[in-house]
């Protein structure tokens, strides 16, 4: 196994990164399959199930992750890094696999959402313990001049976990119909079952690893902490550094990370209405092409220091988020495309019209739904229009269909809502969007790559696991995880600005940049052996 001079470091990095990647994969698939999971376990109209669903979303990320950081951080500082992050892996893999085995609400009633909530909380707890252990373990094996580079492999795992989760879900989905995928025992469960194989391999590899040399030395000398929580947060000198790590680095990194990888995807899907598969394709390319830069910036941080690389990533987010998202809105705007009548073509083979009849007192309303596929300079999209017409007297029967529209009793139709969906961008525009997503993930690589080395160097070995885990998970789980909630809050309060939700990540990143620039030191701590 590796020593701090870097011998055997490849094995250390591989075994640590693989496990962490799998933990991220496990955590993400739940979020990515949230709609299907909601249908299976949290049916609409059931208030208890709705409450459990909300708890599964919010409690797992906000409450349990930082709590897991405390529980496993303490364990890691008391009994060792290796045993602790082995335990988190077992908990994460086991709970993910079991989620895939829980029967749906229709089969076992309220027990289904209760079990899923419980397992999701175990996932959050395990995730809270994994990262700090893996980062500390790799850093404590690394030579001082390559600590940023070696720990940046751990930093790739959060993004690669997302990549693998997206890839597995897309591969499963591509091989079956939507109905088969979404049924109670359908394809959506496969990604959960696959987890047990991945975790099995990772546990086997991790079992062969030995304890971190710095921790083993400390333990041999009887210098390990007996109360890491008290030492980390009760001693002023250390607590001061925990606060600095959170407000001067991790909270900004958390929002940059979340906005680049999750908010961008959700914005393209919900605001721009890009079709499901193309949206994932854009993200996959963006992630795939940006991931090597974690290593580039990790290595660069060994040469020029961690501080300014992290802060530059944040500053670029502050400056470019609004222009980038504004470009998305401007370039893929079906409303504008439709207005340019000369360049619009209609695919006549895909026009569908249906009608429903509503009986209200003595009046009959006919609601006509029209769906057609349009093409604008190579960009394809679906237009759905709903028109309502009043009929002067009651008409027996329902669903009169198109014949109704010819009735002389019909009053002029009131044009209702027109919506656009399933936007498939032409190749050039798709690559432009991929480039913009890639840019945002580059900001992520800058803010995130050096952070493991930065946190490790901030705290002494005896309480390192505890001290670095808590700010990391508050920064990422709480500040990062709040991006969609605050975005919804802002867009409800300021409905005229479609980009208003971005002010939250911009504001937090700007605040963190100011604190970091003012208070952080760019000096690399060469000696973390204490």
């Amino acid at each position, binding site marked *: 196994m590796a020593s701090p001079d870097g011998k055997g470091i490849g094995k250390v990095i591989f075994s640590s990164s693989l496990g962490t990647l799998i933990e991220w994969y496990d955590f993400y698939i739940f979020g990515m399959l949230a709609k299907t999971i909601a249908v299976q376990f949290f049916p609409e109209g059931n208030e208890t199930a709705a409450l459990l669903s909300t708890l599964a979303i919010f*409690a797992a990320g*906000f409450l349990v992750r930082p709590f897991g950081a405390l529980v496993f951080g303490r364990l890691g500082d008391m009994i060792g890094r290796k045993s602790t992050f082995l335990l988190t892996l077992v908990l994460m893999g086991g709970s993910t696999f079991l989620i895939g085995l829980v029967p749906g609400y229709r089969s076992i009633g309220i027990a289904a959402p209760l079990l899923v909530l419980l397992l999701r909380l175990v996932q959050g707890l395990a995730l809270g313990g994994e990262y700090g252990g893996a980062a500390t373990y790799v850093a404590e094996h690394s030579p001082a001049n390559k600590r940023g580079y070696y720990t940046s492999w751990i930093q790739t795992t959060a993004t690669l976990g997302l990549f693998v989760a997206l890839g597995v879900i897309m591969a499963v989905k591509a091989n079956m119909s939507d109905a088969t995928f979404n049924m109670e025992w359908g394809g959506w469960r496969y990604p959960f079952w696959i987890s047990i194989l991945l975790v099995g391999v990772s546990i086997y590899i991790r079992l062969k690893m030995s304890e971190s040399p710095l921790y083993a030395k400390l333990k041999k000398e009887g210098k390990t902490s007996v109360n890491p929580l008290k030492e980390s947060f009760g001693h002023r000198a250390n607590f001061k550094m925990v*606060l600095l790590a959170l*407000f001067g680095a991790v909270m900004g990194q958390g929002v940059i990370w979340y906005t680049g990888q999750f908010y961008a995807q959700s914005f393209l899907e919900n605001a721009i209405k890009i079709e499901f598969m193309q949206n994932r394709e854009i993200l996959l390319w963006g992630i795939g092409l940006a991931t090597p830069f974690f290593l580039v910036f990790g290595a660069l941080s060994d040469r020029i220091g961690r501080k300014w690389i992290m802060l530059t990533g944040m500053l670029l987010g502050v400056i470019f988020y609004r222009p980038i998202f504004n470009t998305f809105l401007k370039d893929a705007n079906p409303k504008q495309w439709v207005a340019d009548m000369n360049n619009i073509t209609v695919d006549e083979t895909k026009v569908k019209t249906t009608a429903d009849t509503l009986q209200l007192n003595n009046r009959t309303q006919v609601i006509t739904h029209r769906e057609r596929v349009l093409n604008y300079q190579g960009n394809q999209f679906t237009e759905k229009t709903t028109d309502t017409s009043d009929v002067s007297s009651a008409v027996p029967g329902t669903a009169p269909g198109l014949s109704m529209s010819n009735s002389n009793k019909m009053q002029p139709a009131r044009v209702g809502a027109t919506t656009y969906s399933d936007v498939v961008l032409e190749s050039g525009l798709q690559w432009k969007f991929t480039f913009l997503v890639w840019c945002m993930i580059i900001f992520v690589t800058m803010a995130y790559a050096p952070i493991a080395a930065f946190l490790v160097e901030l*705290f002494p070995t005896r309480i390192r696991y505890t001290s670095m885990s808590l700010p990391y998970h508050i920064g990422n789980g709480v500040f990062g995880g709040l991006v969609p909630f605050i975005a919804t809050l802002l867009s409800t309060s300021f409905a005229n600005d479609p980009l208003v939700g971005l002010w939250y990540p911009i504001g937090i990143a700007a605040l963190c940049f100011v604190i970091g620039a*003012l*208070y952080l030191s760019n*000096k690399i701590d060469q000696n*973390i052996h204490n």
Partner: protein
Amino acid sequence: MKQLKRIMGVLWMILAPAIIYFLVVGAIENINPAGTKDINKPVPWIIIIAIFTPIAIGLMIFGFYSLKGEYDQLPESSDKL
């Protein structure tokens, strides 16, 4: 620079209660049993306010330490902690 760090400490101390105030006001204005969004449900707000209160207190302590000059000189190495 040291002076600026200390002055900014006051700002962090003011910012902390302001965050809690805005969260509480946000909760009161948006919780609505008829609403369907997450911001209309009480549970997320309870969780967020519960987790943000200690974070905001942390920011206030950070500001206090900063004002007292505790960040004027950072330790050169983690073994100084």
